[in-house]
């Protein structure tokens, strides 16, 4: 297995320990529930923002804890929603007089765990609300399913809600921000290779040397279709069209544009994709107000990328612009 790992069963607590050792002033670690929180949270003067999901998507979700972002987060095993108890303890640890907003990525496992945890916390009088993020356009939404998946758009929901909470907004107001961002953000991804969950030790799906999976999920779930690999620009065009036509985005829109690496793709390739995406946005009459190129929501070492567009307005631009700090940094 081509991975840096000791005991696969300890992979998640071990990397979490590394994150906290690297950020001793900022973060603290509860190993029993695989939870990382800001040392200075909860703060009763502001809403706590909480998330927790499967591991393997780093820097989402535990590395998004910090001022102006999440107050705390628990991680399940790789690709598995955290156990109910961990979710419950996370809500409890971040309980604030101003309330707790749980940003749940829209997967069955996450939803059920946070539902149960929320019920348990509410029974104890904690003021907690949940919001479901579902920005992936790869598979059509339908009444008969759990609905669309939450993927890289997650970053924007966290960033905006974190800024709103830091600005002292109420739980209902922060919830409204989550709703606005989620209604305005769309993503689609493509994979060139499969990832290898450490506990599994082998790839999660098989893919030919000349194939790509269009619309892949961040857990390696199948997307729209399997196809032969195309030139980078052709791939961007398909992602861009799928995403831009979804709300739809229209000429004159001010947007944030993200190229998110899925883990194994070098940043040079992400900029090849960005160049085309930026060009397409300009041709479509969008103004790219902010851009994001890097890794925000990954799938272990999967080679691949996703493209996200977020429609902006004055409020969202201010929220994205607000200062924030996370465990990931350059300097």
């Amino acid at each position, binding site marked *: 297995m081509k991975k840096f790992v000791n005991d696969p*069963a300890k992979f998640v607590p071990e990397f979490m320990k590394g994150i906290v050792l690297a950020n001793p002033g900022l973060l603290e670690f509860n190993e029993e529930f695989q939870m990382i929180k800001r040392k200075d949270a909860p703060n009763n003067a502001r809403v706590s923002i909480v998330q927790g999901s*499967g591991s393997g998507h780093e820097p989402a979700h535990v590395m998004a804890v910090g001022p102006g972002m999440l107050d705390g987060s628990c991680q*399940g*095993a*790789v*690709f*598995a*929603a*955290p*156990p*109910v*108890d*961990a979710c419950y303890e996370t809500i409890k640890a971040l309980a604030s007089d101003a309330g707790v907003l749980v940003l749940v990525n829209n*997967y*069955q*496992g996450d939803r*059920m*765990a946070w*539902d*149960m945890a929320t019920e348990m916390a509410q029974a104890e009088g904690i003021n907690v609300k949940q919001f479901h993020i579902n920005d*992936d356009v790869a*598979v*059509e939404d339908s009444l*008969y*399913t*759990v*609905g*669309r*998946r939450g993927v890289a758009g997650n970053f924007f929901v966290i960033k905006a809600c974190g800024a709103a909470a830091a600005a002292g907004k109420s739980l209902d107001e922060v919830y409204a921000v989550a709703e606005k961002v989620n209604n305005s953000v769309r993503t689609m991804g493509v994979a060139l290779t499969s990832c290898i*969950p450490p*506990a*599994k030790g082998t790839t*999660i*799906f098989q893919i030919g040397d000349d194939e790509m999976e269009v619309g892949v*999920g961040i*857990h*390696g*779930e*199948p*997307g729209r279709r399997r196809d032969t690999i195309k030139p980078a620009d052709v791939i961007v065009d398909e992602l861009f069209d799928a995403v831009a036509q979804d709300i739809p985005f229209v000429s004159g829109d001010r947007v944030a544009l993200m190229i998110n690496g899925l883990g194994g793709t070098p940043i040079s390739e992400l900029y090849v994709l960005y160049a085309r995406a930026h060009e397409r946005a300009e041709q479509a009459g969008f103004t790219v107000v902010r851009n994001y190129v890097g890794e925000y929501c990954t799938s272990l070492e999967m080679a691949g990328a996703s493209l996200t567009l977020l429609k902006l307005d004055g409020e969202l631009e201010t929220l994205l612009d607000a200062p924030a700090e996370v465990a990931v940094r350059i300097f």
Partner: protein
Amino acid sequence: MTEISQATVEQAVKTTCATVLRNEFYFSDLDGLAGDGDFGTSLATGYRIIDAEFDSLDKSNIGAFLLKISMLVSKHVGGSSGPIWGTGFMRAAMLSKGKESLTLADLTDMLGSAIEGIQARGGAKLGDKTLLDALIPVHEKMKEHVAAGTADLGVVLKDAADEAEKAIDATRTLVAHRGRASQVGERSSGTPDPGIVSIAIILQDWCKQFGVDRTPSVAEVINQPA
């Protein structure tokens, strides 16, 4: 009337530990076909602890024992399986509170309540291609045996294993409507649901454990690791 002793319930759980641990990678591989490949690991994480702590678990009565199982699942099993299996055990525990043995009717009611709890938790119905598609027919068959007054529990167990196994093929070509597999649309058709397979394999292993002669006939059950 034939009773199911607490020792049998404990033995069934113990056997399930062995089944889940032996099938850890197999279940994950099946989940990888249309899901995210963690089903086996998630279940095994919980059952490994149940297995290790088995001797010291509260065994004052069946309900207390199953409540403890439910709590260990809620604490250690992630993914969809945590809430689903945790809810199932919780419901079964409620109906067996204080009991030291069960009638077939008791057990049937416990499964019925577990099914209701799982439906309430995850919103799935029959035909959504989840483990409910195995549990519901098993429950129906058990109700028939309760009504008929079947005394031989081996016959009931064999019928239950048959129903669960049939569900694998019956749902294979369906498109999943719940769980992660539902989010891949048409792409889930043609793959077996790992939750259904796990129920069929657990029941098959119970047959073996309790001396019920039964030969599996569906590939996923036949091919489980020895």
